[in-house]
Structures are given as structure tokens and as C-alpha cells.
């Protein structure tokens, strides 16, 4: 009844092609943004910021990045953990080598460095496809982790091989380090998420996105209609790695504060982000958010219910968490193989017709 196109007249092509053509959606979007910017910072405490919201926002960026590569361009990658490590170590080297450099540029440059590394490891995608490409990117994952462990220059020759983020501030507010207020680090990450999600949405609707999707759907046909596979695949790898690198830099600098490569950026991280993309929905920006929320919030929620409310032993709760999250993943994939985004799409279709489905 409320959720419908009828009566919402568009007078220009731009309006007709906007991301949220339905007024109800548009208002929901504006209200969510306003709530996230104007209300959340004031009700946020340390626990909510550091344990729940920051990882959600950061993983959402990583999931969008991987979704561009897998969901839009059809190139399977298992190297996300390694690329996040590149972002984190680039941020660390930049922060320690140029202490005056603004933290925003540090994060952006880290993304840029990761994009270059990603394009380098994306080169094999021109010759190999599917599972074989997945194995090639898996090699990137292991190589990068090995590299950051092996070469002491990357961790400034510290005795333990740990990297820790020095304190940096933006407009007088501390953003990284332990003295950062939860609201500042939240708004800092939210800013990145907003800009990057907005850019990703518009990129995937534009010429580049269409080229990626053409490659994904059938690369030979795409080549025949004039899409250059070299350019399309490498830009997808570059853009995707840029996103993942920024996520890695934020994960290290803002969220964790200290990291070691094998533990924070291991193969588990690659799988985690891959699961986010698959569960959220391939080829959907909303899906990336939904997948990140599912994989980050679900374990915390289950832990709080089982240990906090039901007073179960922590080991039992932790085992059950695996069972429940694993079970939910299987159920979701059976019921809706296209992920949470598709469920959302179906719900919207039904809402449009409600309450007169015929």
C-alpha cells in the first residue's frame, strides 16, 4: 500500500534511473543515513563500537570489494586476506615513515598500493578461469602472508613482528590508537563506508560495471561486442583490491590497533569475506552489507544469548556457535541460493503488490 511506484511521477531521465526509484525506499535510505550519522554516535559505547559496529563497517567495505570482483566480474578470488594484509602493512609503513601525512591519505594510499598488487596478481585471470583462478589467488594469499612474515622491513624490524598503529588525529579528533573516542572511529569508518558504497553502486551501474558484467556472463561474447577483457578484468581486480586494501588498513589502524599477519590476515579471513559475499548475494551492494552483518553480528549475538543470558559454559557456547552459524549458512543457501539480497528483492516484489496480489 505504502510501498509502490504508483503516484510517484518522474519528470526526468536522471530521476527515472535513480538507485531508489520508490519513494518509500528513498525515505528509508535517508532515514537510515540520518540515524547512522546523527543518532548512533551519541548512543555508542566502547563495546558497541569496538566489538560490533566497527568490524561490521570494515568487513562491509571488504565484502563490497570482493563482490565487485566475484559478483560483478565473475573472477573468483581467495586472496582477500592477503590483500587486506597489503593494505594494513602499507598503512603501517606510511604512518611510521610519514608521521605528518593525514590519516585519510594514508588509508587511500594503502588502498592504491593494494590495487597495484591486486592487478599484478590479477594478471593470471587473463589466461585461467574459475577454479584454476581461485587456486592462483590462493597462492597470492599464502605468498603475501609469508612475505610479511619473512621480510623484517615490513614490520620495521620490531622484535616480535607485530605492527601497531601509532596515534593519528583528524581535525583534532583522535582517530587511531587506544585514545580514540568510539564515536570518532565510528564516524571515520562510516564516512569511508558511505563514500565507497556510493561509488561502488554508481560504478557498477555505469559503463565499467556493464563491461564487468558482460565478462561475467560470457567473456567470448563480451569480447565480440567490443569489451576489452584485459582492461575489464584488470580494472575489476584493481578496484576490488582498492576496496579490500582500504578495509585492511582500517581493520589494522582503527579497529585492531595491532596485528600480526598470520593471525589477522590468514586464509580464514579470505574465506570469511567470501562467505559474506556468497551469503549476502553475489552482484549486490546491499548483499555485501547483509552478508557482513550476518557473519559479524551473528556470532556476537549468539554468544551474548548463550553465555550472557542462558549462562552456558563458554566452550559449549562456542561449539554451538559453529553449529548454528554453519547450519544457517546451509539453510540459507538451500532456501535462497542467491543470498540475502535476493530474499530482500523478493520481499520488495511482494510488498509492491500487497495487499492486492492479483
Amino acid at each position, binding site marked *: 500500500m505504502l510501498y509502490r511506484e504508483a503516484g510517484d511521477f518522474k519528470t526526468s531521465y536522471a530521476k527515472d534511473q535513480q538507485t531508489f526509484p520508490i519513494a518509500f525506499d528513498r525515505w528509508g535510505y535517508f532515514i*537510515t543515513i540520518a540515524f547512522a550519522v546523527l543518532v548512533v554516535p551519541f548512543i555508542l*559505547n*566502547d*563495546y*558497541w563500537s*569496538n*566489538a*560490533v559496529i566497527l*568490524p561490521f563497517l570494515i568487513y562491509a567495505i571488504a565484502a563490497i570489494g570482493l563482490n565487485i570482483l566475484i559478483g560483478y566480474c565473475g573472477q573468483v578470488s581467495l586472496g582477500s586476506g592477503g590483500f587486506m594484509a597489503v593494505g594494513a602493512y602499507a598503512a603501517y609503513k606510511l604512518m611510521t615513515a610519514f608521521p605528518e601525512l593525514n590519516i585519510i591519505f594514508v588509508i587511500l594510499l594503502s588502498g592504491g598500493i593494494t590495487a597495484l598488487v591486486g592487478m599484478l596478481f590479477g594478471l593470471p585471470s587473463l589466461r585461467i578461469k574459475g577454479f584454476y583462478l581461485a587456486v592462483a589467488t590462493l597462492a597470492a594469499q599464502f605468498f603475501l602472508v609469508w612475505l610479511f*612474515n619473512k621480510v623484517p622491513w615490513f614490520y620495521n624490524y*620490531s*622484535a*616480535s*613482528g*607485530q605492527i*601497531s598503529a*601509532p*596515534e593519528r588525529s583528524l581535525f583534532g579528533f583522535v582517530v587511531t*590508537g*587506544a*585514545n580514540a573516542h568510539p564515536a570518532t572511529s565510528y564516524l571515520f569508518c562510516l564516512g569511508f563506508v558511505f563514500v565507497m558504497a556510493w561509488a561502488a553502486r554508481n560504478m557498477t551501474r555505469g559503463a565499467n560495471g556493464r563491461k564487468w558484467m558482460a565478462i561475467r556472463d560470457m567473456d567470448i561474447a563480451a569480447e565480440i561486442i567490443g569489451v576489452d577483457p584485459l582492461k575489464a578484468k584488470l580494472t575489476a581486480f584493481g578496484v576490488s583490491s582498492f576496496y579490500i586494501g582500504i578495509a585492511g588498513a582500517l581493520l589494522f589502524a582503527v*579497529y*585492531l*590497533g*595491532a*596485528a*600480526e599477519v*598470520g*593471525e*589477522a590476515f*590468514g586464509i580464514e579471513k579470505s574465506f570469511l569475506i567470501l562467505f559474506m559475499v556468497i551469503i549476502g548475494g553475489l552482484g549486490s551492494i546491499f548483499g555485501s*552489507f*547483509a552478508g557482513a*552483518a*550476518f557473519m559479524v*553480528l*551473528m556470532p*556476537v*549475538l549468539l*554468544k*551474548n*544469548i548463550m*553465555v*550472557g*543470558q542462558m549462562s552456558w*559454559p*563458554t*566452550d559449549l*557456547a*562456542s*561449539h554451538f556457535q559453529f553449529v548454528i552459524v554453519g547450519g544457517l549458512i546451509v539453510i540459507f543457501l538451500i532456501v535462497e541460493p542467491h543470498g*540475502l539480497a535476493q*530474499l*530482500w528483492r523478493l520481499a520488495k516484489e511482494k510488498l509492491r503488490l500487497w495487499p492486492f496480489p492479483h
Partner: protein
Amino acid sequence: MKLTKLAAAAIAATIAAGPVLADLVFPSLDYRTGPYAANGIPFADGYADYFALVNARDGGIGGVAAKVVACETGYNTEKGVECYESTKGQGALVYQPLSTGITYQLIPKATADGIPVHSMGYGRTSAANGKVFRNIFNYPANYWNGASIAINHILAEEGGDIKGKSVALVYHNSAYGKEPIRTLEELSKKHGYKLTLLAVDHPGQEQKSQWLQIRREKPDYVLMWGWGVMNQVAIQEAANIRYPMDHFIGIWWSGSENDTLPAGDGANGYKALNMHNVGSDYPLYADLKKYVYDAGNAAGAGDQSGTVLYNRGMYAAMLAVEAAKTAQEIHGTKDITPAMMRDGMEALVIDEAKMAGLGMPNFGPSFSVSCENHGGPGLGAVQQWDASTKKWTLITEFGPSDMDVIGALIAEDSAAFAAENNITEGCN
């Protein structure tokens, strides 16, 4: 979808995190699952049981009940951060993360929040310099002491001269395993042995190539910085290549029953360091049986009693309780805050009379903590595994480590940390 989930989580978390006041809260960031559970469980059980004993026998610490809040980290730093944030609001007095990686995360956070961290025999070694690391304690001994004690033991075995001998270090490829390398390199300059480094990646189940290299190069001694499943695999591999087990020395985190039992007779003679005594032959165990085990309050499955890591968990809890008592005395109040707890830890004195009074005579070395020295005396002993009786026994006294070398390294590393974080050294 997203919002409903957030709302549900909000409700769950607010109900879950209702603070219980008036108790002294000791969070236990433990791990009973994952590849490090074999070592995490006994420590967590010992830690919890000692507090249960203090509550049941003495009515708490100075009359105030102690409350242990368990949080499963799985040895994972992100879960560790979540655990820290979720427990600190409940009035946590001291954190014992039992993970060097999590300790590194918590050092800046806990310092900002004013909560002390006790990384007993792990964590960042240079935290021994209390003038820089005001809130971090790692008494009674740290990794660099351990490295030096191991080399001292080799020196004693070889009659004081190890020039030209070769020593291999098998280490967990993480901050934890890398900690002793600097010290071992310095000591190799001093004593003239040849050091070979063999990294084992997390979680440590795959060590074939490392042990193949040991088999080929035949180092005179092998040192190990391992944890969790890595220990069991390494001891089994050493037994498989018939490496002389009495030339294989683990750090104190690589010397528990759970590490040696799987290798059976092959592990006989394996040595490890320790910072406290072993076995269950203490009056304290009678109390534990009476007040905790028989009352059905033992933590976990209750089958870890008397093991090396159970004793260590108990030792950590004992040091925390004594520090809390010291804090109560200093500040003249029963309900201490984390800041008072920090003062108590800094003024902690452990002597033989105190330990005997607690039913733990001769359990560990006597020491006192000061602002200049958060690391304690750095004493350690060597224990050896007897596969026929399935028991560890100490084969040396608690010996000193080479503080000339270590002191300089600590000063250098803590100065670097102070410079990075704009900390001015000082005790006030």
C-alpha cells in the same frame, strides 16, 4: 533485515551486560576450543578453581567475593578484543589474556582505560620496564629470561663452553615465537654458538619440513617456543626422527602433560622450563579437594588438577589475589578499583613465608615488584618428563638469567615503544 538484527543484538547485549557490583571481578580470557585448547583448558581451570577456593574457604578477598568472568577467545585477537570490551564494563580488575597476540592488542587499550594487564611469562617482554609500561606487568619471568635460562642450562650441561655448538629454535611463527630471537642472537654472539631459526606456521600441525631439516643438520640442541597442538606435533616429530630428547628444551609454554602424553615413551627425557613448581603435593590441594572438588564446583571437566598448566593458572590466580590484598591494604578499602589493583600489583611482595601460609610452600621463587621492575627476578628452573611415571620433575634449582644482556634489550625496546607513543619515562 539489518536493522531488526541490530535491534535484537541490542536487546541481547543490554540484558547480557548487566553489571554486578560489589564483587571483585577477574575476567578470564580463556580458550577451551580450537587448536590451542589442550593448553588453554588446564590454565583456565586452575585460574577459576583458585578463586572458587578463595571464595569458599576465606569468604573472598578481604571479605569481598571474587567473581571470575569467563570469555572464550579461541586464541583469536578479534575475539579477544570483543571479550575485553564486553568484560571491562563489569569492573574488571586485571586482565590475563594468555595470548601474546591479544596482549599486544590490550597494551594500548588497557593503558588508556587504566586497567592493569598481567601477562605472566608471555606478552611483550619489555613491559618489564614499568617506567614505560605503567599498567602492564609480566612478573615473575619473561621470554627473554626463558631464552637465557635455556642457554644457561645448555652451558651447564656442556661444562660451560658451547663455542661452535649449534642450537636450533623451532618457533610458532607469530609475535609469541619471535620474541626470544633477539635474545638468542645476542647470546650467540656472547657464547659463540650457531643459531638456526625454524618457523612453524599457525596452528602448527604441519612440521615435517622443519624436522627434516633438524634431521639433516643434527643441531646439538633444539629449543622450542610452541603452544597448543604445535607442542604435541613437535614432540612426536622429534621422537620420530629419534632426536635425543634430553637435548630438546621447550619454553614453559611447551612443557605440560597434554604436550608429552600423546608421544608416549618417545617423549621420555624431554625437557622444558618452568617458573614454578610441579605436582600436587601441596597442602593447598587438600583445601581444593575439600572446598572445591568435593563441593562439585571444579571448573571444566575437573580432570586437570595437578597438571603443570593447572598449577600455572592457580599460580596466576594466587598472584592476582595477593596483589588485590596488597591493594586493599594500601588504600584501606575492600572495594578496590582497577587503579588500586595496579598499585597493589606494583607493591606485590611474594616470599616463602607468604607462600607457605597459603599452602604452597616452595611453589615458586620469592620476589618483589617495583615500578622500575615489572618483570620480577626472571628466575626459572628446568623440568624433565618421565614417560614411565607420566610425571614432570624439576631437575634444577630456580636459576638466574643473564640480566646484562636482557636488561639492555629491555631498555632498548621499551625506549622505542616510549618514543613511538610519546610516553615520558617515570614512576609518577
